[in-house]
């Protein structure tokens, strides 16, 4: 496990991804509060703009890694039998990969 996302590397990754997500969320929330979208066209323009698509992709990457490390910690703490543990980890991994691909389709593949 030394090469994977465990130990000190996971610890550091959890904190760096958290910091990145805080910056993104502050930007998004202040935008929604002070310049709320007036109609569909404005909403679409905001999301299709290069800046939002790019920063959302980075946010998504941070979110998925953060969710993997956090979810993995919870599973390793509470699920002790090896078989159940591996099953849960696989389910979490598949779930997160599914969410990533779906989000990329929404964010980067223009419809």
């Amino acid at each position, binding site marked *: 496990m030394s090469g994977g996302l465990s130990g000190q590397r996971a610890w550091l990754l959890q904190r760096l991804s958290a910091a990145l997500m805080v910056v993104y969320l502050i930007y998004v929330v202040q935008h929604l509060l002070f310049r709320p979208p007036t109609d569909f066209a404005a909403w679409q323009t905001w*999301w299709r703009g290069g800046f939002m698509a790019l920063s959302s992709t980075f946010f998504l990457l941070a979110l998925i890694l953060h969710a993997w490390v956090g979810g993995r910690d919870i599973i390793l703490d509470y699920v002790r039998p090896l078989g159940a543990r591996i099953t849960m980890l696989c389910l979490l991994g598949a779930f997160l990969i599914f969410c990533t691909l779906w989000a990329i389709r*929404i964010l980067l593949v223009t419809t």
Partner: protein
Amino acid sequence: MKQALFLFVGLDAQSILSEHDAMTKKSHNRPVFLDLTRIQMPIPAIVSILHRLTGLLLILMVPFLLCLLETSLSGSEGYASVMSLSLPALLVGLFVIWGLFHHLFSGIRFLLIDLDIGVDRATARGSAAAVLAAGVVATILLLVIWL
């Protein structure tokens, strides 16, 4: 080997070894009290377990949020349907927003504790109570601004 060593230094090996065994056994048989309904957890423990629970909640909510985003970007009809969510959906949304605020504030508290800020018991308890309150206050504040 151990017995021979004890005999060599003139100790009663049998009694020492059995005493050692008894002590080891004792440490394994110590009473464990983990009845979560009867343990009174200190506030930092409540904040910590809520950090985990809200983290789990947020992971499980990702598909629903992606679904909302996809619908809102699918066209003006989808946008309108997301903008006029039903009351139950809005209440669930408010709960998720509270979860995000709590996870965010308790996460910042953990980051500060990592940096050795607020580690002593009094400060840790105070900041835990502050985090617990801040999550609720921020959710209410957001609701007020939105309405």
